């Protein structure tokens, strides 16, 4: 049996078409309604409520906590202030990404790390010789992401915290209707949004409080299908979809460096003490990465013409796809797309792709393989810089 999250008693009755999926050994809703359209719309126009409890969560404390994390990840954790959150990948000694997640500094010597995969062993290996306690709090801590332009208005109904001054990637320890919570201004949608961390024992109270307070603001429980559309628009990578962990890759070609994933900005230029991958990443920064991670915009005219040639109206994916699609330039394969969707907001067919760095400049004309009526075809596409969507309200 897959595990259920602490919110399951509330979410389960809402999943009308029994559309569940696996996430880190848990079952979570793909969508609550049969189609994710309204749930997606809530992300961009109201407030969508996601159960993100399956994230792996580690509490790292002690005088060596800062040192451990700084040693492990590419960003400079010594610069992370109390109440700040860092998004960062972490690498192996060759500078290839193992996983990515967030580090929240809860106080001087206490951090919460989130990860897509189990990292306890890796943390322990890196903690050798340090005075640090590492606790896996994944099951003890439940989490909700409240994302969308009205998410702030909803929280203001139920929490005394000052959300007007809570900046992007900062957190506050506060309460929601008397329930102790940590609220961070973070998320996986590229929109204004917050993540709420709560003791699993109070999870249902938290859900009820938010759903009640959000009623006038269009609060909508939303599943992974809607989240996937939003994160592709926001150009955010997903482990096991857009890249593979260096710990699981069977061949070198399956690994990616931060530079090859568009995460060069997370590699501290003048950083800090030694950390995993420093040597390799320094070399790569001064040289040139082999691959680039970019956006593709499929040409509608070209896409439509492929269908019209078979007497059909164009057929667009309703949910995001997560299969590798070859990308060509002048008849030669120059890369592959790993996620794609029709953006309901932008009214464009978009994809995330790995392209050879020499063929990755924005504006480059390429083609992407699509299957039209059982036949492999090439749809025209143009390289775009990421993200596709970056509203002001995300940081404002």
């Amino acid at each position, binding site marked *: 049996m897959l595990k259920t999250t602490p919110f399951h008693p509330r979410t389960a009755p809402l999943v009308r*078409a029994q559309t569940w999926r696996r996430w880190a050994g848990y079952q979570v809703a793909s969508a609550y*309604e*049969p*189609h994710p*359209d*309204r749930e997606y*719309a809530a992300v*961009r*126009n*109201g407030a969508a409520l996601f159960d993100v409890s399956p994230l792996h969560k580690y509490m790292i404390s002690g005088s060596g906590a800062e040192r451990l994390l700084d040693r492990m990840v590419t960003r400079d954790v010594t610069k992370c202030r109390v109440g700040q959150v860092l998004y960062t990948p972490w690498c192996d000694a060759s500078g290839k990404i193992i996983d990515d997640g967030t580090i929240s500094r809860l106080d001087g010597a206490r951090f919460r790390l989130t990860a897509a995969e189990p990292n306890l062993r890796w943390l322990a290996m890196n903690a050798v010789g340090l005075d640090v306690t590492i606790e896996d709090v994944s099951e003890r801590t439940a989490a909700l992401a409240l994302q969308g332009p*009205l998410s702030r*208005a909803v929280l203001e109904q139920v929490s005394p915290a000052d959300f007007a001054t809570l900046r992007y990637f900062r957190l506050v320890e506060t309460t929601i209707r008397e329930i102790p919570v940590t609220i961070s201004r973070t998320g996986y949608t590229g929109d204004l949004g917050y993540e709420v961390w709560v003791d699993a024992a109070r999870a249902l109270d938290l859900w009820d409080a938010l759903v009640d307070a959000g*009623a*006038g*603001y*269009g609060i909508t429980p939303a599943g992974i299908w809607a989240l996937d559309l939003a994160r592709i628009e926001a150009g955010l990578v997903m482990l096991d979809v857009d890249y593979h962990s260096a710990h699981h890759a069977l061949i070198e070609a399956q690994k990616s460096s931060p530079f090859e994933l568009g995460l060069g900005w997370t590699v501290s230029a003048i950083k800090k003490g030694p950390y995993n991958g420093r040597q390799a990443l320094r070399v790569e920064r001064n040289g040139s990465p082999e691959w680039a991670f970019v956006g593709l915009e499929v040409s*509608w005219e070209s896409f439509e013409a492929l269908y019209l040639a078979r007497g059909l*109206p*164009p*057929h*667009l994916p309703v949910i995001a796809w997560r299969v590798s699609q070859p990308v060509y330039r002048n008849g030669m394969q120059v890369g592959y797309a790993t996620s794609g969707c*029709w953006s*309901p*907001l*932008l*009214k*464009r067919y978009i994809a995330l792709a790995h392209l050879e760095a020499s063929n990755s400049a924005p504006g480059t004309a390429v083609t992407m393989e699509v299957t039209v009526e059982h036949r492999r075809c090439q749809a025209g596409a143009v390289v775009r810089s990421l993200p596709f969507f970056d509203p002001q309200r995300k940081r404002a």
Partner: protein
Amino acid sequence: MTVSGYDAILIGGGHNGLVAAAYLARAGRRVLVLERRPVLGGAAVTEEIFPGFKFSVFSYVVSLLRPEIIRDLDLPRHGLQILPLESTVTPLENGDYLGSWADPDENRRELCRHSPRDAEAMSQFGRLMQHMAMAVKPILGMMPPDPTSLAPTDLAGMLKLGGHFRSLGAERFHALFKLMTMSSADYLDEWYEFDPLKATKSASGIIGTFLGPRSPGSAYVLLHHYMGEIDGAFRAWGFQKGGTGAISEAIAGAARAFGAEIRTDAGVAQVMVRGGRVTGVVLENGDEINAPMVISGLDPRRTFLQLVDEKELPGDVIDAVKRFKFRGSSGKVNLALDGLPDLTCLPGAGPHLKGAISISPSLDYLERAYDDAKYGEFSRHPYMDVVIPSMIDPGMAPPGKHVMSIFVQYAPYNLNGGWNDNRREAFGDAVVNTLARYMPNLKSKILHRQVLTPADIERITGLSEGNIFQGELALHQLFFLRPVPAWAKYRTPIRGYWQCGAGTHPGGGIMGASGHLAARAILGER
């Protein structure tokens, strides 16, 4: 004061005028848009009629906006954001309801409750309509060729059209011909047995026209509304965030980004013509603006009979425009609500309140509603298409409060004795009383009521006789006959004077195609 320096002046900041302006500006033309009202959009405007409550005052949903316009003008970047409006619920006289849901399985099961046979017919009907819409789609993007002309472009156009129809094959061509000529009731009778289903579907065949579901020609209007579905793939159907005015603002934003100048509170009194050629416009405030080209986004009556002197036009054109049928037949009631009303057939705040509620319990009900109008009265029990935009876009009303948009038919422009304040309120009462039969607690929730008759629509937007399509979508007023024979290609007999409103092909709905095709004609594109 006299001003010069523009290549073209657009009269009317409705969505078609703005689309034309955007395309012309994109092509490098210096364009000036003149809008009489303080708000842009014509019939696609959002206004705060009651403090805190925003209304799409007239046009309230978007289904037909052309995908190529969305792309060419990059409208999402300028604020186009279409939210899903997925379902329709028809409350029945017996206390039950007929639901039409987005999920095909849920939809089929629902219809099975009423008629298993219809549930099966549904998917085949959907397939046919998709074929029909695909058959008609190329025509929407085509400048209407004149079948009586021997000019090469007209011949080429007719040939293309002929080739297109031949490619449909006999079965689809016959189906298309039936659609073009039959009544929507007869057409739907060939497919369905459950009367409320036929009534609800036929309702889209009467919207904006002075026809009943049993009037021949109404099936075409059905198709016109179905055409939004062809671009179902593009998913441009639904409710615009912030109301339909935000669509107009998005198009205006694109036009401005291309360099167009847009002025509000700038009504045009007259188009200046010298020697059969346009020379500019005179504003209501007396200012003159010179330009070698003037494009009217107004309806044919205003374009040909009001903005220019009759003596500038051939008599037969004047005659034809005078015979052009407007006959506004619909009204609008906008309500500010203190809370959600309950439907007797489906109490509580379910997902059905995020979709449309159709008051169309039977074909007889609709036909009787038409009977009232035929003899000069508003329907005592009208057809209504009800949406609660604040359920889809929480920004339309304060938290916990709601706005309700009620499209009402029939309300004849030529009411016996004429429209006045008393008659308007009586009409509003008929609407609310009828709706309250299905939503008993509606009246107790009403904070504010705005009632718009065809006379009000004409007065506020300028649409002649309050016709929402700038003239009926009747077969004799379509394609190369819209608005009048020989002048269907956006030109007028006055050199430099063009038309781009919904009164030209293909017309009607927030489609933008008339404005786009007019701009293409002006720019000499095919």
